């Protein structure tokens, strides 16, 4: 009986293995450890463990899933799991695809390209416009995407989603968010992109733990330019956010950053990044806090799966005190 059980077990195991191999499943991950010197003390920590799975289901359908395990003080175990992306991709024709699920909103280059993969980040942390929640990082919905079309290698994303204030399962209102992003790659390793995002956030919606007491009509316009050449790297992005409420009228926020790095002696890359966020007086949707940050660092690329960064950051904030932080990070992919 026992032998029969093992026999059946192995047949099922081999059959599943066969299915896996025919579906080309890949499992990858990213993790990092970081140490910081801030307020006259050294702290050790880590960001998140990021696991992602890709699978080719058949000739036209593929899947990408990304889950993150991270420290969450409010959780009973002090750790939380979040689904960052669930993407079912259906190839319609040529380079045109139908995308369904939860995506990194294709609003700018950083969000669409790196997001959780710190081994790819050119700096230790994301630009400050991410922490300030200027752009919606994720969208759950459906859209079409195309890439490398024509001589200019034109690409587009048109995505309709539940919008801000919605849960992962159900929309909180009838309004849908719309993201339209286009880009071209006119020269080798050069990419220029533009995007527009619109959402109407209902009165009473909860966005990132904050209750919105007014209906907000939001338009975001983003521009980005990136060139990661053999030696010189540059990435500049800017978002103009227009939030309209009946109480305050139209308020404008500008968030920009520019990163530049230069590869010297093999795998060493010194770099700088300048960030700035400026809110118009009377802004009530975002947490108004004008900020400027300067980052200067050195990156050593041990291999494509292991990167060490040492960085100094000065941050000036309208509300908080100025900060001077020195950080080091060891990021790996596996």
């Amino acid at each position, binding site marked *: 009986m026992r032998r029969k059980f093992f026999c059946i077990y192995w047949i099922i195991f081999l059959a599943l293995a066969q299915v896996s191999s025919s579906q080309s499943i*890949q499992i*990858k991950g990213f993790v990092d450890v970081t140490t910081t010197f801030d307020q006259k003390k050294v702290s050790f920590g880590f960001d998140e463990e990021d696991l992602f799975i890709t699978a080719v289901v058949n000739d036209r359908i593929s899947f990408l899933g990304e889950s993150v395990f991270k420290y969450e003080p409010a959780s009973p175990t002090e750790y939380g799991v979040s689904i960052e992306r669930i993407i079912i991709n259906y*190839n319609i024709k040529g*380079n045109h695809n139908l995308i369904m699920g939860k995506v990194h909103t294709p609003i700018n280059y950083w969000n669409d390209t790196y997001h959780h993969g710190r081994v790819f980040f050119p700096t230790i942390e994301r630009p400050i416009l991410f922490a300030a929640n200027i752009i919606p990082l994720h969208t759950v919905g459906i859209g079409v995407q195309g890439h490398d079309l024509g001589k200019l290698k034109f690409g587009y994303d048109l995505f309709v989603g539940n919008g801000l204030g919605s849960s992962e399962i159900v929309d909180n209102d009838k309004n849908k968010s719309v993201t339209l992003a286009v880009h071209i790659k006119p020269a080798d390793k050069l990419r220029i992109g533009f995007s527009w995002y619109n959402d109407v956030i209902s009165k009473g919606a909860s966005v990132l733990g904050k209750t919105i007491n007014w209906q907000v009509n939001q338009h975001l316009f983003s521009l980005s330019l990136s060139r990661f050449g053999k030696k010189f790297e540059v990435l500049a992005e800017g978002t103009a956010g227009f939030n309209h409420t009946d109480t305050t009228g139209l308020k404008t926020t500008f968030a920009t950053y520019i990163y530049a790095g230069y590869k010297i002696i093999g795998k060493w890359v010194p770099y700088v990044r300048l960030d700035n966020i400026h809110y118009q007086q009377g802004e009530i949707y975002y947490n108004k806090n004008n900020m400027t940050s300067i980052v200067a660092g050195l990156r050593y690329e041990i291999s494509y*799966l292991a990167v060490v960064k040492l960085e100094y950051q000065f941050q000036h904030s309208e509300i908080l005190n100025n900060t001077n932080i020195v950080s080091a990070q060891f990021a790996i992919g596996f």
Partner: protein
Amino acid sequence: MCSLSNAFLFIVSMLLISSTSRSQEATLVAVGNQSGAPSVMKFSELKAVLMGEKQRWKNGNRVIIALMKTNTPIGRATSLKIYDMTGDELNKFWLALVFQGKAQAPNFFNSVNELETFVAQNPGAIGILNKPLADAEIKPIMIDGQKAF
């Protein structure tokens, strides 16, 4: 004594330079499954395909890329000659593209025979080798009018 050591250094340097240039000048050939890839391509078209910029061939077959691993001599030559990258840069390029959900990863192989069998068995597959093969199930692809490049 000094001139002897200088001569030794000179010879070692020359050997190193010649071996580097040899790997850069290694000849490569493109091969494809009988179904999918065309028999003639421009080098720029080949590069675009191998950079993941094309999802389907004209006959509708999905483009499937087959490459030698970047730690093999053919893989190194492929990285340099087609992608203008080191092996590490090529691996990073693909990992990033797959992570973004923008492309399916290429299939990497340890041996020429494995790559050849894979291309023969998968419609739409295109691969890079170092010499033409006498295999009826695989077709050579002329690049800029040449069998090898």
